[in-house]
């Protein structure tokens, strides 16, 4: 059963990154009911930013997070203020205009990357990229482990911010009921801008970390975007604990399929897509929503 254990460990490690990547999408959706297709472009730009910092300044990819995160937070706020805020807001749920707008932004970001870095496949090779350690008997790459640790830390910090700070409570309030939050004195517009910044920063951080694990091109990001959708749909799109659970489910599914069947990895994408469609159709409230109803509990954002 060593194989199964290896699958579990690998899934857990992958889930950490998936959760970080998906949280960026989840917070934007939760606060603004907007589906951010530019998420893929940000993932990609985060990877390239890290790459640029590494090749030009020799800055270690994990250390570069200290630069990437604030930079992309600012970029996110800018994006929100200059474009997203101008869209007509509809309380009837996410609008197709926002989807198309952010799709356009994604395309522009892709072209930007092509123009600056060309379409060649890039990767980041550090002295520790090829090293691995033994974790409870399972061989695990050093970058993979580092990514898991960083993801874990960032999600813990996130939880603390959401529970203990005014900002966190304001974000949760706006997510639950925008009008009620405003009546309670929350500046929803400002919170939305901050939330967009946070979402962008998380996406860029995830992209940064992905750059240490995979090679990338400007087209990078699409399959991760779809995985993120899959996860937040499973998670009900508003719950942080759900994002972690959804990430784990997807990671487990991918690793189990990879280990025990001979389906090639290119089909893995088709797998995520199918899971996404199934999840959208079968669980409109997300997995936790479905289980919550079964257990009789109505808590949505706990």
């Amino acid at each position: 059963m060593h194989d199964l254990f290896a699958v579990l460990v690998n899934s857990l490690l992958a889930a950490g990154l998936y959760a970080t990547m998906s949280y960026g999408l989840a917070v934007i959706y939760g606060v603004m009911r907007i589906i951010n297709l530019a998420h893929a472009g940000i993932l990609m730009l985060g990877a390239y930013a890290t790459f640029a910092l590494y090749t030009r300044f020799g800055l270690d990819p994990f250390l570069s997070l200290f630069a990437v995160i604030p930079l992309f937070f600012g970029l996110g706020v800018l994006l929100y203020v200059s474009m997203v805020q101008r869209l007509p807001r509809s309380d009837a749920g996410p609008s197709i205009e926002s989807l198309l707008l952010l799709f356009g932004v994604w395309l522009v970001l892709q072209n930007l990357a092509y123009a600056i870095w060309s379409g060649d496949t890039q990767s980041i090779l550090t002295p520790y990229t090829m090293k691995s350690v033994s974790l409870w008997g399972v061989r695990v790459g050093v970058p993979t482990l580092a990514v898991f640790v960083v993801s874990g830390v960032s999600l813990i910090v996130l939880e603390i911010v959401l529970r203990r700070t005014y900002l966190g409570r304001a974000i949760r309030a706006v997510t639950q009921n925008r009008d009620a939050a405003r009546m309670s004195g929350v500046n929803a517009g400002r919170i939305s801008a901050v939330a967009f910044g946070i979402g962008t920063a998380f996406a860029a951080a995830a992209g940064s970390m992905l750059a240490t694990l995979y090679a990338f091109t400007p087209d990078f990001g699409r399959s991760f975007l779809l995985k993120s959708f899959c996860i937040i749909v499973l998670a009900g799109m508003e719950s942080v604990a759900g994002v972690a659970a959804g990430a784990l489910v997807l990671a487990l599914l991918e690793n189990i399929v990879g280990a025990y069947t001979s389906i090639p990895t290119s089909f893995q994408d088709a797998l995520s897509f199918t899971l996404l469609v199934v999840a959208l159709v079968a669980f409109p409230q997300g997995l936790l929503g479905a289980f919550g109803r079964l257990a009789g509990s109505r808590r949505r954002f706990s």
Partner: protein
Amino acid sequence: MERGSLNDIWNLAFAVVLASSWNLLGGFAGQVSIGYSAFIGIGAYTTALLALRGVAPYATVPLAAAAGALFSFIIGLPTFRLRGPYFTIATIGVSEAVRVFAAGVSFTGGSSGLRMPPGSFDFGRNYSTMVLLAVFTVALSAWIRERPLGRALSAIRQDIDAAEAVGVNATKYKLWIHALSAALVAAAGSLFAINFQYLSPGSVFDFRLSLTIVLMPIVGGIATVAGPVLGAVLFGYLQIKMLALPALRDSYLFLYGGLLIAVTLFEPKGLVGLLQRARRGVARWAQRPVTHAG
């Protein structure tokens, strides 16, 4: 006319069919699908597979259309339960899954694709069929718009719950218009296979193609009859111009993205909307009171 410009007209007609057909579901009914290249692929592959088994190429076109319609039901039945952007995301997923599948399975020729059997390649006939299909599609949209069907779709687009409340069976209409739209696109895909003689998953199931199909009617003027045509002309023109200038060749994403951003932020009704504004502006200017003495 020389061959080069006939080619351009073929491409334009192809674009018009795609844009106008998409508009039936995406514009009139308001269900935005970014997965239409799947239908082009289904049409093209149906034709190629049948032709390789001895069926006359042009005879395969109606069969390709039927295959498209059938596939649209398979996609539509589960996904039409989703609303708005969720439906759109599901269509992206489905289309990508189809592409991966076609590239991975061997009877479709895998990732190297299929070649049509050598035979009578008659460009004149290819050209006139495509133009005919384009004219038919635009005429069909104009006709639909004036009928109760068009009004029902418009109701669905504006407020699906209200439409259902007044007795419109939204799911039935969505499924049928999707089937019609898919059949037309699949027919175009079939003609594509006949004209280009070679298809591969990369060429017919391309995500960028799905994107262009969506952009043409949106930029031209969604939910109108002229909009998709204008959009197709614009994109056709832009493609030609951009391919000619090496500096711009790789900038098409800037252009597509920029157009999408500009349309969503400034003129959601696209070119048609701009023209309407211009016309109103001129009318207002013509009616301004004479203030000078006289």
